[in-house]
């Protein structure tokens, strides 16, 4: 009942804005991609709250979203997201 199918999802995603988000992600390359894909299933506050993760840990988080949670993110987009998170929300070590 609460499940949203991909077709309807794309339409609402394109049509609406992040009105309910109370976290604004840092400016940087890939921000829009991260906002859209991460924000599709969960609020963006998860990102700054986990900003201690290093690149490898962000890689495995993104991989988990794709493999375990079925996020429809292709490899090129995944790389954009990982780059953005590592640079802007990464611990750098």
């Amino acid at each position, binding site marked *: 009942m609460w499940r949203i199918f991909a077709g*309807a999802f794309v339409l609402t995603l394109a049509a609406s804005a992040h009105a309910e988000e109370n976290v604004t992600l840092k400016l940087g390359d890939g921000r829009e991609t991260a906002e859209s894909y991460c924000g599709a299933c*969960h609020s963006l506050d998860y990102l700054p*709250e986990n900003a201690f993760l290093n690149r490898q840990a962000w890689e495995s988080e993104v991989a988990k979203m794709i493999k375990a949670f079925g996020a429809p993110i292709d490899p090129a987009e995944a790389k954009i997201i990982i780059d953005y998170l590592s640079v802007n929300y990464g611990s750098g070590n």
Partner: protein
Amino acid sequence: MISRRAAMAGGALTIAGVTPLARFARGAGQPWLASGLPEGVFSTAKLEALAGKKPLIKLTDRPPNYETPLSDFTSEFTANDSFFVRYHLAGLPEEIDAERWKLKVGGDGVERPLELSLSDLRSNFESATIAAVCQCSGNRRGFSEPHVAGVQWGLGAVGNALWKGVRLKDVLGQAHVRPETVEIVVNGADGPVLEGTPDFIKSVPIDKALDENTLIAYEMNGEPLPHYNGFPLRLIVPGWTATYWMKHLDSVEASTKPFGGFWMKSAYRIPAGKFPIVRHFLSQMTAVNEPITEMVVNSMITAPQEGHTLRTAQTAEIRGLAWDGGYGIRSVDISTDGGATWREAELGKDLGRFAFRSFRFAFTPARPGKYQVVAKATNVAGQTQVDRLIFNPAGYHNNVMRPLAIDVL
């Protein structure tokens, strides 16, 4: 698949059917947060009220993850409007019509599948009541060293309530559960946003399901369950972490095989052999890990709060709450010198082995200075809190003693 254009439009997310209930701006503000949490929490966490709730510490908005402020732990029972909120997936039921609610009881392990309304549960089964602590497996994850990914819970993903409902074993009895049943699989009305995301479904071993303390609750502290704590029905699994306490319960299935879903096989698992666990989930164990089961013994000092100032030669009361996985609290010791010396606190009313046990200790500092106040709970099984984290990748079972810095003037 989300198109690149859609992605670049950068929009989300008011999807019909998953829009969270309206929230009030009432009480929006900066919460008090314990030291040791990741830096990001201090800039993003807000005090905010969900419908029917007081302002709680909002860690994440969607799905809603809100913890109880330490200052709200004023008695052994946690108020319904203060009780923490935890969801995995953002497909929340918006409005629930209790009159039309059905609990389906089935699976290959029952001979007589049932469909029960709330009034069936209230009229056809004996009611049972139990005081029990509900604690998120990841309570205190935010204090993990090093930090680990996930919701960065502080101290407040725990609460104690008086739960009233019917015994799961009575419901299973009416459905004629076969002796080959190994697990009871439970599901609730919340679900994922995407089709490909595994629904939050859990199982409990048959012996725990048949325990007389395992309930299907319709009341919490004398009121219907709050929406965000699982209205209209919630599974109550005393002693075990809240991952098993399925909210918005609408399906109970007896299974003759171990349940293979993501939330059992991959999530909520702890490394094998690291924790002093008595009751394991035998049908779900592997050589390397096993499902989290019973809570480890723990405590929190609720007063005074961190950074509080006391006065020399004046008596202050150190108060707090202790709990464990259902063996019962035997003692709580207090140190005011960072753990060098200990004295026993006075325990409060015994509300049962699954409930919060309050403690108090009169502290009269003789000299001004900085004091480190620590509480250490010990349970009837002889287990005690640890002084160093038993590290695990998901940050579970954090029962590290927490020194509280107090200034005495």
